[in-house]
């Protein structure tokens, strides 16, 4: 890759990191997710800033065109994140379902005690 491409990548990834840190500071992003994104960001910054690392990685993996190696790494990370979100979503859904059930049962109890105002 040309050096302009590397600058572009570094700038993009660094601004993403800054954006995530800002979200955490405002309390809009739970720290556990920020860790996920930040660690990904750091790895991508290193790869983008030091072309040698990337070239070396590409060679190790048997990828002839180095930028593809960058995309592969980025994609692998995104896949992990996506699966993690599905897992988290399933857990949350189970929790909201349980909450809905508890709420309904409590309301019924209340109604039983005060039959007049239902």
């Amino acid at each position, binding site marked *: 890759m040309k050096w302009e491409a590397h600058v572009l990548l570094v700038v993009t990834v660094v601004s993403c990191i800054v954006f995530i840190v800002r979200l955490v500071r405002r309390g809009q992003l739970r720290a556990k997710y920020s860790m996920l994104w930040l660690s990904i960001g750091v790895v991508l910054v290193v790869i983008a800033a030091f072309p040698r690392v990337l070239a070396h990685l590409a060679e190790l993996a048997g990828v002839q065109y180095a930028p593809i190696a960058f995309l592969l790494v980025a994609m692998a990370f995104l896949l992990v994140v996506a699966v993690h979100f599905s897992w988290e979503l399933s857990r949350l859904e189970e929790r909201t*379902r349980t909450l*809905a*059930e508890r*709420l*309904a*049962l409590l309301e*019924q109890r209340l109604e039983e005690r005060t039959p007049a105002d239902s």
Partner: protein
Amino acid sequence: MPPNALVVVPAFNEQAALPGTLAEVLRHVPPAQVVVIDDGSLDDTAGAARAAGVPVVRLPYNLGIGGALRTGFSYALEHGFERAVQIDGDGQHDPTEMDVLLAGLDDGADLVIGSRFLRGGGYEVSRTRGAAMRLLGRFVHSLTGQRFTDTSSGFRAFGPRAMRLFARRYPAEYLSDTVEAILIACRAGLTVREVPVRMRVRAEGRASTRHFRLAYHYVRLLVVMAAGAGRKEELA
């Protein structure tokens, strides 16, 4: 019906059919032994239940029949019931058959399934649906080693062990609430038995699931069944 059994009626938009169903049920049990789980209905299902003098638990939004049942089991346990019978709100299940299901529990089963097809119940289904049901039966057979003629029957009785298991974990999606529940019970080491019951052809009101959705649910169920093969379920 013995006083330690609760009739759980999951109902979603059953304002029209529910009064009839409840009137029938109440010929066999007092209102305190019945609970309607209003599964986030948009019509006045809860009002219909109250008019019949039956306790109603209103879910804040639709959880699916499995979620409604799970709520029903929690309700049963909180109120000290030892057994539960599921009767759908649409009037498909004949309450006179409840005793047949409960007798199955007396014989030592934890989960008793009322089958439309055992001993020729005279219940007719379309050819594709029949084939799909047989396919399910075959899969369940290969996973549990037990033969079931009506895996998707929702007319069931639950003993105390099944109630405790299912109050914690009951599959919510369409088809899973019946078929997958059998697998979960078997994996937990519960005794599951089928008994023949008469069932009515489903009354008007509930739009039948569209074909592609049905196909999706069958495929999803097969994946779930394959993924769960060999897994052990823990009893609470």
